[in-house]
């Protein structure tokens, strides 16, 4: 950064007359200039020079106005921050403060029933159309996945970067069972769950001895292996083309079709394609609530307590006589099973699955929901799923930006960029997640929440 230092040096002498107390203005200007230089180095080549294909090869096309804008924004932003916001010089690298005490009680108490009621009433609201219903289904699917992953990461403290593999196994199990045997959704669902739980144990065995990041990379590798097998095993999985024509769910035997024998006819309703969507919505809501109830109950059972003990300290756990092998395997199996349920639901909702739906980004997204939600907090995870998935959908609807930047500006392209930025920002702002209070599973005198900084995060 020597070039940066040289170029920035004249700034303070211009702005602040020498020997007058080292003025804040001078410091701020100097700092902002440095940052502007960094921004120039960052954006200069990548934003300023665009590679355009010609008939003879690639050529460069300059867009210096964009770089100038970016550098100006960085300069102004940094200067204002330095001069107006960061009054006292904060020590660099301030560690995250321990999370504040439990959030205000009435708010949390009211939040859970309010969210539940909204979720129950969502399809019945007059404003809800097909699009909003689909978003609701999507959010609930991710909530369920995140609750499932939470068993592994939040409760047992095992970092799993390949959770999407179980989602995939569930989806393909359902699709193949339903297609080859013609069984209904309600028979295939538990079967898919069992198969996925076995996949979880399959992953669990080799990684029993691994800890921390070794575990993380092996789970990631497992996820990739499953995806690569799905792509390359044409005869069984259909390869990259996936499986289409997966049977749609019926209302306990009544198909959602118009005419005789359909759901609408049986109940004397007018046929509407929305019926199936509403039904799917309630199915995934029920599945999600089952996941929730199951994990909340499990936490109180010996196995759940063993998970949390494992997360806090594995060696102490072993010396107290807890079978860590079985504890880890049950965590993997149960977490995987919920992923499998979600996968089956995904397959029946889409009617079509392909390996493209099960990439690492999905694992990362689910893990991000768990961590942003506060790692172990059920309500926090639901809120995080709402914020993240709802946020992505909101970003799809940025059409009004066209009015600002002109008609050839496509806002949907910026969706993932903004999403990534939001992920970084939320994490830096609240490293302990959105809800940072925990209910201990055992208490002596009274029930009270503790801050998440008191809870171990597991070393694998």
């Amino acid at each position, binding site marked *: 950064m020597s070039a940066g230092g040289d170029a920035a040096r004249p700034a303070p002498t211009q702005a602040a007359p020498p020997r007058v107390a080292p003025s804040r203005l001078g410091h701020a200007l100097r700092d902002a200039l440095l940052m502007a230089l960094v921004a120039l180095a*960052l954006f200069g080549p*990548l934003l300023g020079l665009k590679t355009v294909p010609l008939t003879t090869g690639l050529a460069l096309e300059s867009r210096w106005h964009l770089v100038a804008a970016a550098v100006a924004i960085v300069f102004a932003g940094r200067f204002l921050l330095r001069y107006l916001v960061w009054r006292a010089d904060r020590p660099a690298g301030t560690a995250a403060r321990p999370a504040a005490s439990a959030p205000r009680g009435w708010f949390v108490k009211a939040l859970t029933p309010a969210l539940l009621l909204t979720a129950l009433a969502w399809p019945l609201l007059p404003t809800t159309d097909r699009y909003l219903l689909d978003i609701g289904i999507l959010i609930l699917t991710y909530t369920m996945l995140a609750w499932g992953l939470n068993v592994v990461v939040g409760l047992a403290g095992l970092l799993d970067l390949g959770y999407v593999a179980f989602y995939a196994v569930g989806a393909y199990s359902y699709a193949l069972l339903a297609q080859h045997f013609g069984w209904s959704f309600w028979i295939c669902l538990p079967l898919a769950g069992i198969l996925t739980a076995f996949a979880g144990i399959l992953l669990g065995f080799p*990684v029993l001895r691994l800890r921390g990041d070794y575990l993380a990379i092996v789970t990631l590798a497992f996820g990739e292996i499953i995806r690569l097998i799905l792509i390359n095993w044409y005869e069984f999985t259909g390869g990259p083309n996936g499986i289409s024509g997966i049977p749609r769910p019926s209302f306990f035997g009544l198909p959602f079709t118009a005419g005789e024998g359909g759901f609408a006819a049986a109940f004397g309703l007018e046929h509407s394609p929305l019926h199936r969507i509403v039904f799917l919505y309630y199915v995934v809501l029920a599945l999600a609530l089952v996941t929730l109830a199951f994990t909340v109950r499990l936490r109180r059972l010996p196995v759940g307590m063993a998970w949390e003990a494992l997360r806090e300290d594995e060696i102490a756990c072993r010396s107290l006589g807890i079978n860590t092998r079985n504890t880890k395997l049950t965590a993997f199996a149960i977490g995987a099973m919920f992923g499998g349920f979600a996968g089956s639901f995904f397959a029946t909702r889409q009617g079509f699955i392909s390996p493209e739906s099960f990439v690492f980004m999905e694992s990362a997204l689910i893990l991000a929901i768990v961590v942003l939600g506060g790692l172990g907090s059920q309500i926090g995870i639901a809120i995080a799923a709402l914020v993240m998935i709802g946020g992505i959908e909101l970003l799809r609807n940025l059409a009004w930006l066209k009015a600002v930047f002109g008609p050839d500006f496509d806002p949907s392209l910026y969706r993932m960029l903004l999403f990534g930025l939001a992920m*970084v920002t939320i994490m830096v702002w609240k490293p302990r997640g959105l809800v940072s209070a925990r209910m201990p599973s055992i208490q002596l005198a009274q029930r009270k929440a503790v801050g998440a900084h008191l809870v171990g995060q597991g070393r694998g």
Partner: protein
Amino acid sequence: MEYFLQQLVNGVTLGSIYGLIAIGYTMVYGILGMINFAHGDVYMVGAFIALIAFLGLLAFGLTALPLILLLVLFATMLLTSVWGWTIERLAYRPLRGSFRLAPLITAIGVSIVLQNFVQLSQEARVKALPPQIHGGLALLGQTRISFTQILVILATVSLLAGFTYLIARTPLGRAQRACSQDMKMAALLGVDVDRTIALTFVMGAALAAVAGLMHLLLYGVIDHYIGFVAGVKAFTAAVLGGIGSLPGAMLGGLLIGLIETFWAGYFSAEYKDVAAFSVLIIVLIFMPSGLLGRQEIEKV
């Protein structure tokens, strides 16, 4: 035999690239104990900067290839390390001392940001650069080693030697080793921890930039997705070699490169990644801290 030798040459070249990226992972992990998930995308950014620098210099009218290569190398390393520095400053430093999953999530966020930034600013199309260095040497019979491959291997060896010297002999290297052993104690003894960590990211990014340039020269085709696959492979290499160990990262990189190339050459190209990942899992079952890693002593 000739076929085997050709695969060996290709495998070593590929492994060198993985090794260079893996060193960045392993250095950061050794000091901070975090997986820098965005490192693969820094490598991708490096490849793009190299491409743009090439095109810029060619358009400028330069024709002397060694000069162009040298300038591109210098520009790519410099500009990419600014990216490395910025990422550390914005996404990791505020979370230092926080719990260990937090920087992992910001790293994934940074990775998304980098991919989409490059996609938006350079368009999603695959970019191709015609081969710049022609010719090669004939080894046994039909086996050939191209000058690009020689360059890649030479650059890797000299960089590895340079960095080994840097870590073992210079004050910066001493500070890095001190930080990786005990960050608090190092700070108490006057090591500027923030600066050391920032420089570690800068070094990692510079190596990733070289790897990106090598990829561009060897294969000539890049897009904004190359970072993910290469990043996962390189991290696999770092773990395979024993994370935190510099020679381990290089060894792991070479192994992954060789396994991939030989599997693709003798069995099936579709399952080469499955083979690489399976070897990782098998090695870790029997050697949970990798090939050259130290066994960590755990205490309650």
